[in-house]
């Protein structure tokens, strides 16, 4: 068994190069093309409602994290719809209903999170 690394890893290399280039372009464009007018309020760090460089024993609000976790959860599930939509012609009825079942279970999870009060701020 021989591996030809050129053919197997060529696409990985391509992904790496394009990824780095794209990241540089996006970051650079927003840096060079924008109008910058900094002041103290704009420059201060804002992370989940509290200053990141403080005493570690301070109290913080756990609700930010709950909302963030719920956001990541439902956002990622929405991401899952993209590959499904692209490959829909190949996965037939079975694939279609699998996603239907998935969405149904997601909705039940959402109803649970809503009713239990995880989305309420007060």
């Amino acid at each position: 068994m021989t591996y030809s690394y050129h053919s197997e890893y060529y696409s990985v290399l391509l992904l790496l190069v394009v990824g780095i280039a794209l990241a540089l372009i996006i970051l650079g464009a927003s840096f060079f093309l924008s109008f910058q007018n900094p002041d103290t309020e704009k420059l201060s760090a804002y992370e989940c409602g509290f200053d990141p460089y403080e005493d570690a024993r301070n109290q913080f609000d756990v609700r930010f994290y709950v909302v963030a976790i719920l956001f990541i959860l439902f956002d990622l599930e929405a991401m899952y719809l993209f590959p499904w939509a692209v490959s829909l012609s190949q996965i037939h009825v079975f694939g279609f209903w699998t996603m239907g079942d998935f969405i149904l279970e997601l909705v039940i999870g959402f109803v649970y999170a809503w009713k239990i009060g995880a989305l309420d701020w007060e």
Partner: protein
Amino acid sequence: MQLNFILFFQEYVLILGPEISLSLTILFIALYAVFSATKKSKPLIMEATNWLAIVGIGITIVVLENTNYSTSNVYSSIFLFTTHTKIIKLIILIFTAICIILCKNILSHLKINQFEYVMLTLTATLGLLFLTSSNHFMTLYLSLEMQSLCLFALACSKRDSSMSSEAGLKYFVLGALSSALLLYGISQIYGVTGHLDFDSIKLSAAHLPTHSAQFKNLCAGQLFIISALFFKLSVAPFHVWSPDVYEGSPISATLYFAVVPKLPVFSVLFYLGFVVFSSYSELYTHAAFYGACISMFIGSFGALFQKKLKRLLAFSSVSHMSFVLMAFSIHTKEALTLAFLYLFIYMITTVLLWTLIASLRFENDDNRSRSKTVLDLVVASKNSSLIRFSGLIALFSLCGLPPLAGFMGKALIFKEVMSHEAYIMAGIIILTSVISSVYYLGLIKNLYFEVASNNSRIFKPLPLFSTFIIFVSTVLLLLIFIDPNLIIDIIKRIIDSIF
């Protein structure tokens, strides 16, 4: 089109019947509980969700019994539908039902009032069902994760106890480590063979030349996977989490940890060792042998001076897992039968012992979630002769004394070890059995001869179902010794279907 739908239903939906019925139960409980719990009157729904879960498991067992597990290759053969998965799933469901019924009283005593507890138990069971029939490394990993994430949450379900949170966090961090090991091993195997499903891996792994780099890579990957499975089984170099987690988590969760997940994880390990990587038996023999030797020593010495019952039983479970591994390391069909036999006896004894510990409830206890010590057992044994007698039977069986099932399991494994001339193994078994019988006999001395100095505490009477479970498992421990064919027939069916 309609015919198409019926065919589709028969092919894809019916075969996963038990899993689907269990997930429907979970979803129904979620909806029911969340809508009743948020009513203005704030009703207590723990009792109702518990009964719903038990009914759901009952329905699942009936569905499982009526599912035809002969068709294969549905879902691109990522699931395995054979007789052995069916039987193991049945046993998992029965033991989960026992755990859920038992936990009803424990939870109300510990004042844990969250309906999520039952949902998490059921989801863990669902993960275990998928784990049993996984035939692909991705289903194996995902179902193992599903199971362990629920167990982390169960470990810290007593939210106002720092011990419980600590146990959950420890379990989570170490469990993440073991998942990383598992994934790394899977990636090594994928790198060598280019496949993730067991059937293809089996074909490509069988013909690798020894001493080639790929062969070594594959062995390394398997070692990582074995380590991750050892972690789940709390076998010795990877046992560190178990005493802390067993002690910290609420006793209803500990009962579940100690009894249910061992069987499916062992069945996956056996399936990997005997079927998928059948040409690598030497690797599994060595891994199981060293794991078993270390756990025997750790299990017997660790428990020697333990005063807390939960920690003591955690160490004892480590040493009992090593007996199963000893049998596995011989790597023959007969030895595998004995491994399953020992595992089943262990499960019955553990249910009995943990039920006993869970029933050590006192009326005027200021700290109800504190971990129970040997002293509590002394007080309880003065109050109830059932606890005294069944404790005696369970401990004698763990210790391995003749008229009980535990003796049969140990003796048969010892005989098998001797017939394969593995004298080092036999020596270690004898040595550690003597050491561990010291603390089992010490507990029995406490049950019968110790005088309770502090009798001010009032012992709560045993709940009806606990009495039933204690009675049935005590009788089973005696019956299995008298007629081992009670379970040997079941094991024979499992083994025949694995090979």
